[in-house]
């Protein structure tokens, strides 16, 4: 159950997307997210869907595996849809009791759900097809100019990569703690909201303690290896662009131009 969280997890495979330079993938994800918020109407929707399907197919990650990641945001999706559906003013389509569903509401609810779902799917292509190490490298390199205005780019990307790296570890830990407490007769599933919240205590206390212990151990291990930030640190495998990366940049630019022109002219 808890293992279903796929956000931030790497899925090993040998696809073209896996081999791309992480900077390209970061840029691609950014562009894709932008395109999700500028598309309008059915043609735009078709374009972003085509883009998403293309990326997912290229990454060779099974679609079923990715969709599992949507479960985590199912509640948000439902709430967003409900708000848009009932609270958008306009021509009433159906109305009952105090609620009325308008045509505009239906439309905006539909698009909002699509936007959010695609946002999660699109960005999970990035994390599923990029190892946390590569991701940090890419981020650090792309954001390096920000160093000049005093933003500690290396430190921030280090924090991000550690956070990403720890998601699967903590998920596994949660799984183990859950099992240990289930073996003592704990019940995480039945009862009302208050009872269920209370039943989380035997899960959260050991989880927090272990997270702090791990953080402490990691800090110690980093210091023992003389880690002192990004200044003067070299890479064993520096990032280098290959020909396919150039082609990918062109493709991304083409995609963006297509979505943009659909928005302007249609």
């Amino acid at each position, binding site marked *: 159950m808890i293992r279903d969280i796929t956000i931030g997890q790497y899925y*090993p*495979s040998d696809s073209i997307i896996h081999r791309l330079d992480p900077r390209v993938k970061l840029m691609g994800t950014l562009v894709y997210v932008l395109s999700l918020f500028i598309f309008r109407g059915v043609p735009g929707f078709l374009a972003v869907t085509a883009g998403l399907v293309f990326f997912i197919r290229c990454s060779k990650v099974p679609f079923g595996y990715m969709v599992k990641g949507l479960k985590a945001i199912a509640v948000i999706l439902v709430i967003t849809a409900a708000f848009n559906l009932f609270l958008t003013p306009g021509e009433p389509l159906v109305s009952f009791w105090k609620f009325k569903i308008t045509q505009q509401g239906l439309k905006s609810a539909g698009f909002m759900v699509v936007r959010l779902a695609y946002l999660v799917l699109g960005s999970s292509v990035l994390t599923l097809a990029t190892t946390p190490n590569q991701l940090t490298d890419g981020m650090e390199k792309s954001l390096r100019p920000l160093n000049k205005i005093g933003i500690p780019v290396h430190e921030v990307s280090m924090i991000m990569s550690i956070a990403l790296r720890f998601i699967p570890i903590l998920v596994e*830990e949660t799984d183990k703690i859950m099992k240990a407490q289930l*073996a*003592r*007769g704990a019940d995480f599933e039945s009862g009302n909201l208050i009872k269920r919240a209370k039943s989380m205590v*035997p899960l959260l206390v050991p989880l927090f303690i272990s997270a702090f212990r791990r953080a402490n151990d990691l800090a110690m291990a980093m210091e023992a290896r003389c880690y002192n930030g990004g200044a003067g640190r070299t890479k064993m495998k520096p990032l280098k662009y290959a020909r396919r990366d150039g082609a990918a940049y062109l493709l991304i630019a083409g995609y963006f131009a297509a979505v943009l022109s659909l928005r302007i002219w249609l």
Partner: protein
Amino acid sequence: MSIILDKVNYIYSQGTAYESHALRDVNLQIGDGEFIGVIGHTGSGKSTLIQHLNGLLKATSGGIYYNGRDIYEEDYNRKELRSKVGLVFQYPEHQLFESTIFEDVCFGPKNLGLSKKEAELRAFAALRSIGLPEEYWYQSPFELSGGQKRRVAIAGVLAMKPEVLILDEPTAGLDPKGRDEILQQAAAMHQESNMTVLLVSHSMEDVAEYVGRIIVMNQGSVMMDGAPKEVFGHYQELEEVGLAAPQVAYLMHELKQHGLPIDTGATTLEEAQASILQVFSGRGRNQQQGTKQEML
């Protein structure tokens, strides 16, 4: 009372790139009051196996029967099964959470729906039986040493009065003294209450002294199953899969190869000592008899 496993298979993350076949056609029968050691290398499937026994993992295929009832039946009460088959995991840190040790041990019995008084009585008895001095009982469980934490974790499961007790790597990370204490306690519990006890370990030395039966797991299937004597007789095969028989077994085989007529089935130091002494005292007597005859 018994546990029967019938062709149990388990596959982790089926259908993804992480797929791994953790159990392959495991058939086992665990009788009442047995003291069993489950041995295997890291990743041999021993931890996966024991999580099936109390229904934490559901077999991909195959069946498990507890006291003759199929635990995968729709209306089977798996929560009750978990109180009957008590499983103590390797890391006590994964289950200790209350502010005092006593309250933590009460958690299990309380989950069984017992009254506060009854739960406290059981916690009291459980803490007594693991031999933790009373002055610790109202301290935080996080201030204890590794061995003490592990004992408190065992008490937390014992307080549910299980019929079967499974200890997953109870000696990992303990010093020799802590190790012996835990193992002796497990043996004592088995003897006093005739509980079925399963001891999971990757060390032969740990279990040889105490258990009556050893199950050797390798790559997800049962490789050997028998009394320690039989299992250690195959010490060469054990070595091939990265395990080792107790050092005593090697010594006895070597002595035999050098022509000493001893019993190679000895698995503990005491047995070996007795066996060697017997051979030598037998020889001594023969020699004495010889000299006596000469004198006559």
